[in-house]
């Protein structure tokens, strides 16, 4: 079991309010991702749930029981830190054993769990090594192993992949998703990388300056962002925002159109521009097009499109894919 409810939770450091009162419901077994730019309060929110920081006001309940003032140890949650936070003076086995030892678990039972976790995480051959002798990915797995042996009611991940190189990150992402499917335990995952958020989450919580901008499934956020911030933050490459005649024509202060929803033509279209840099990825081509008024439009075209630097092209947004925003940035 691992449902977590935050009600009117807020946090201030001195006079600075990092998190204004917010409500959030996390259901049992869900994979929830907190995403937002750095400084948006996502890590603080996670630490509030973990019990590593005090709430300034509000309440947190875990599985229906009030946990607002419970110490981290008593909450039954496990956490994987950005730096992995392994105990450098203990072997891998002792690292994984540590939470069990603290819980006073019988050593035979503990060993059974450690071996099972090691098998799942491919750590069996490394149990007697020190963290210092492991690669980044292996350390990450030890940190996860230390978390899973406790059979916590929920896992908390604080940007766990940001210290890994790109290829390993993709691998670990899959492994964590796999783990979630196997264990079916609630996971709360903090990241600033919207790709991680989109690929892993059941439910994404977009945070900005401490406020929850939107909560929803990845596709909901992609297809119907509630405001300009979410629209711009979710999706890669970023959504294009256009003001002026094109927006007025559609009764909006500004409109947004994703690069993949623009049709390119060499003869005619709504916008006319000059091709700047074009990035050929093989499957796709990303075009950075300069408009006459100085603006830029990014376009995602098919991989076989042949355009040259300085060439003039025309672009038209797909009408049904256009997002319209009012002067406050809210979706109309």
């Amino acid at each position, binding site marked *: 079991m691992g449902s977590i409810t935050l009600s009117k939770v807020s946090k201030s450091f001195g006079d600075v309010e990092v998190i204004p009162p917010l409500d959030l419901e996390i259901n049992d077994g869900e994979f929830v991702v907190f995403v937002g730019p750095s400084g948006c309060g996502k890590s603080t929110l996670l630490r509030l749930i973990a019990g590593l*920081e005090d709430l300034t006001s509000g309440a947190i309940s875990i599985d229906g029981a009030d946990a607002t003032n419970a110490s981290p140890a008593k909450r039954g949650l496990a956490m994987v830190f950005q730096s992995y936070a392994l105990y450098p003076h203990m072997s891998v086995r002792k690292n994984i054993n540590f939470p069990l030892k603290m819980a006073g678990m019988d050593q035979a039972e503990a060993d059974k769990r450690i071996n099972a976790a090691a098998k799942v995480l491919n750590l069996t051959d490394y149990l007697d090594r020190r963290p210092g002798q492991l690669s980044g990915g292996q350390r990450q797995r030890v940190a996860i192993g230390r978390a899973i042996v406790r059979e916590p009611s929920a896992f908390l991940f604080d940007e766990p992949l940001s210290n890994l190189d790109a290829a390993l990150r993709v691998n670990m992402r899959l492994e964590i998703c796999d783990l979630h499917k196997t264990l079916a335990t609630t996971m709360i995952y903090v990241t600033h990388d919207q790709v991680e958020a989109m690929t892993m989450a059941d439910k994404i919580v977009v945070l900005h300056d401490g406020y929850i901008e939107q909560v929803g499934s990845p596709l909901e956020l992609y297809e119907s962002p509630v405001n300009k911030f979410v629209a711009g933050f979710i999706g890669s490459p970023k959504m294009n925002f256009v003001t002026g005649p094109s927006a007025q024509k559609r009764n909006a202060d500004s409109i947004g159109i994703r690069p993949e929803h623009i049709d390119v033509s060499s003869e005619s279209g709504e916008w006319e521009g000059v091709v700047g840099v074009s990035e050929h990825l093989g499957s796709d081509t990303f075009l950075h097009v300069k408009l006459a008024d100085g603006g830029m439009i990014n376009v995602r075209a098919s991989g076989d499109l042949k355009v040259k630097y300085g060439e003039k092209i025309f672009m038209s947004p797909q009408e049904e894919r256009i997002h319209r925003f009012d002067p406050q940035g809210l979706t109309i």
Partner: protein
Amino acid sequence: MATQQSRSAARLMMAPAVILLLGWMLVPLTMTLWFSFRKYLPLRGGDLGWAGFDNYTRFIGSSSFWPSVQATLVIVGGVLIITVVLGIILALLLDQPMWGQGVVRILVIAPFFVMPTVSALVWKNMFMDPVNGLFAYVWKFFGAAPVEWLSQASMQSIIMIVSWQWLPFATLILLTAVQSLDSEQLEAAEMDGASFMSRFWYLILPHLARAITIVVLIQTIFLLSIFAEIFVTTGGAFGTKTLSYLIFQRVLESQNVGLGSAGGVYAIILANIVAIFLMRIVGKNLDA
């Protein structure tokens, strides 16, 4: 940042150290302050009543007061200058590639392990003795008249002995700092055509600023209260009577506790002036 729980635990765990040091500071300080206003002569009847500011005016009016303040500052300042300058040179030298670096390092830091009473005695008798000392022999060897170090050049001698004791410390701290200097930075400067002097002046010295601050702070703490070196060598004669030593004589040798206590209060004030001055600099440098 932390939770309320850990904050109260922190306060509780800091309490013993804070309370002990507070007591260690306040109790004797209050007593010293009290004695300084009393006519207190343990050998001639003990506490003979209120003395007002008598002790203070007498202590400051005595002919030994200002010379003792001067002696204190000269010793502290002299040792600081010598150890920092030589320390930087030695640190730069020891940082160069060489054979047996570890052994040299041990040789250089060894004087720090010698207790002050021993080093004072050894220097006084075996090196600075005008008849049988090694220096006297060297002087005679070159046809010069042996110097009576501890009477003719008493200040220089004491500064030399104390510098010998503290040079290892300065060298080691500065060496550690030099070793942490980014070699690419120096190479870039060399590529830019900077001479050794300008590299030293614009790159190395600023990098050492923090280490020098630490050296000055910690040495000052210890040097303000040097005692054994003077006790063993000159016994405060020949102009080497520091403020500390003067007070020591008033309290223990003349058994005038009231007068000595007033001197103690002056010494505490002097120490505080130095402390405030130092803490300003250090406080700034420690943030970095």
